[in-house]
């Protein structure tokens, strides 16, 4: 029903565009100069069609359920029901009217359901009537107002401005909403687990919290050795460090090659090929690490008499590094290419060779941008989940041996939130606390990275 109405309104919008433009042509043909191009008159009428429709739809969506609920429950007032019971009755009514009710049907509920059904259909049909009449009225009003000297360009531009503003506002509000949901859960978590234990504790074993009998009262002391985040923070930075050890040299050197040495033809093919690496889903990297690199390292280690775990930090970090190569290579290529040719010429003219020029002039000039690209790479490494979950194990070992398995913040969030979970449980809230700390770390890195990149831009533009 709503879909048909919506389609109809869109059609009305197009029709009013057509009418607006036609009226503009008529005015033009009577040798009067218009204040805007004819299509602006069309857009103007379409806007007059869209705005009332949008307003009425939103009002309906907000108020209809509340009003219907009030009307239904007015039958039960003064009968001594509690609020919770009333809510239950309302839910039962709704379920019955949709034919999804499975319990015992009482005559009361049945009557309410019938009433609910009829109220809903009245609401629907009145919505159609109101929306359509409002649209027709507003379009007709606007149509009458169009004359040779009416202003249509400004309202249309303002409307576009408002639409674009709303879109960016939606994106920002979503971010804010996510951050707030993290904050509140995190605060709840720290009400049970002391911040000190979380930041400095060296044992991370959230499964222990889940074993707790639900009838037991919450006793904070029993968590004292459960939510110590040091091992997983250490694991996170350790794996990120291994990844950057792979990604920085390879990415940087391939970036320098692409920007300075590669001929146009090589560059034309090599750059997209490297960027394909960035398009591989991380889950593919994950099983590449878990099923190919991990076992390979284990065998290699065994043949050299080393004890290597099948799920090792080295396998996960190494593959993660490969994943990050294209970011660093592509970004540093861009940065190096944007170093002005005049600097290179200046250096060549002094008799410097190509490698001297790169080492002494181009690289220092591009350094801030390169540092920025590296920091962006680091924040990706820290936020990466799939590869670690699949290739580095889920037990939070506090170790600096790359051949052992270790775990990261992201992997632990996955572990905590897979399967059964209860809201308000410290174990679930631990995920939010971890998410929050992860968010803070990557936020700081991104801010620093963007600052550095911006500073670099100011220098040459």
């Amino acid at each position, binding site marked *: 029903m709503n879909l048909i109405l919506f389609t109809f309104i869109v059609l009305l919008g197009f029709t009013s565009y057509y009418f607006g433009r036609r009226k503009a042509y008529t005015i033009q043909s009577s040798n009067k100069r218009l204040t805007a191009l004819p299509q602006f008159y069309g857009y103007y009428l379409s806007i007059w069609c869209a705005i009332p429709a949008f307003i009425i739809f939103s009002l309906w969506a907000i108020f209809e359920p509340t009003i219907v609920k009030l009307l239904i429950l007015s039958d039960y007032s003064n009968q001594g029901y509690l609020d919770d019971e009333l809510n239950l009755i309302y839910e039962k009514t709704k379920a019955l009217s949709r034919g999804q009710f499975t319990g015992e049907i009482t005559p009361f509920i049945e009557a309410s359901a019938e009433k609910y059904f009829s109220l809903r259909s009245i609401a629907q049909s009145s919505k159609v009537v109101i929306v359509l009449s409002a649209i027709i009225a507003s379009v007709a009003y606007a149509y009458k107002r169009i004359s040779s000297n009416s202003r249509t360009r400004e309202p249309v531009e303002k409307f576009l401005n408002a639409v674009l503003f709303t879109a960016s506002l939606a994106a920002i509000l979503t971010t804010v909403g996510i951050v707030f949901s993290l904050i509140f859960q995190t605060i709840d978590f720290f009400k049970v687990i002391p911040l000190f234990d979380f930041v400095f504790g060296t044992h991370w074993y959230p499964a222990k919290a889940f074993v707790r009998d639900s009838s037991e009262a919450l006793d904070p002391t029993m968590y004292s050795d459960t939510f110590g985040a040091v091992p997983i923070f250490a694991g996170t930075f350790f794996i990120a460090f291994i990844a950057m050890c792979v990604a920085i040299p390879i990415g940087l050197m391939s970036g320098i090659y692409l920007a300075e040495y590669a001929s146009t033809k090589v560059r034309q093919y090599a750059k997209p090929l490297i960027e394909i690496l960035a398009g591989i889903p991380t889950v593919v990297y994950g099983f590449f690490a878990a099923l190919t690199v991990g076992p390979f390292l284990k065998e290699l280690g065994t043949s050299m008499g080393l004890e290597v775990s099948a799920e090792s930090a080295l396998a996960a970090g190494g593959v993660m590094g490969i994943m990050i190569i294209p970011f660093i290579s592509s970004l540093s290529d861009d940065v190096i290419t944007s170093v002005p040719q005049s600097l290179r*010429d*200046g250096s060549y003219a002094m*008799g410097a*060779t190509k490698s001297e020029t790169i080492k002494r002039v181009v690289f*220092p*000039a591009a350094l801030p941008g390169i540092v920025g690209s590296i920091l962006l790479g680091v924040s990706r490494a820290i936020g990466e989940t799939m590869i670690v979950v699949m290739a580095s194990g889920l037990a939070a070992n506090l170790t600096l041996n790359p051949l052992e398995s270790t775990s990261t913040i992201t992997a632990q969030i996955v572990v905590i939130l897979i399967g059964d979970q209860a809201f308000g449980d410290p174990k679930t809230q631990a995920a939010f606390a971890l998410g929050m700390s992860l968010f803070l770390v990557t936020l700081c890195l991104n801010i620093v990275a963007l600052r550095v990149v911006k500073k670099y831009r100011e220098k040459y533009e």
Partner: protein
Amino acid sequence: MKKNGVKMIKIKAKDVDVFYGKKQALYNISLDIEENQVTALIGPSGCGKSTFLRCLNRMNDVIDICSVKGEILINDFNINDKSCDVVRLREKIGMVFQKPNPFPKTLYENVSYGPTIHGMAQSKQEMDEIVETSLKKAALWEEVKDRLHEPGTGLSGGQQQRLCIARAISVRPEVILMDEPCSALDPIATAQIEELIDELKKEHTIIIVTHSMAQAARVSQNTGFFHLGQLIEHGSTDKIFKNPDNTKTQDYITGRFG
């Protein structure tokens, strides 16, 4: 400098052709450049004067599609020969560009760049001396001696260009090529640079490309006029400006085209 009344020829270009891909940019240029003189190359935009200048220190090597034919003899040695070491050549032939292009390093590092890559100083003291002499010769020392360790990009346009000149002369080149060195500068900075050029010609041979005929007349002793990739006329600046042989030269000098 005259030896027995005969002017010494520093650079001798013979039948130089330059191509950008398939497009020919210079046709059969033959030109003698006298030692310790300022030679100005003038002509309308796109006539090939900068291209010719860049042949003299093989800067055209940097451009992939560019190829140079013919002989360019500097001190009787053909720099287009395979045996020519470009690094040594550019040590001998310095260059100053149209837009000041100091490196994003300190003033000191800018000037010490050349001596460092050519291993010209054995000690910190020697390097300090080279930097000081070069900046003095470029008439910049007094203005910057207290801030040698600040970035070179913080100077004004005219100062930056003098810094680039100091950088170029730090390796004591025999020839300095200047590609419209004043086109991005104001009249006062231009006057300073022109004064400097006059001073520098005592020790260096200078070739300057310029759009300003007045500048060519002021600073140069010899002038070459380029048009559409050909060297139309060259000779002493006096002659070119007062009594040119070619009508095209006459038209350009008097501002009838270009």
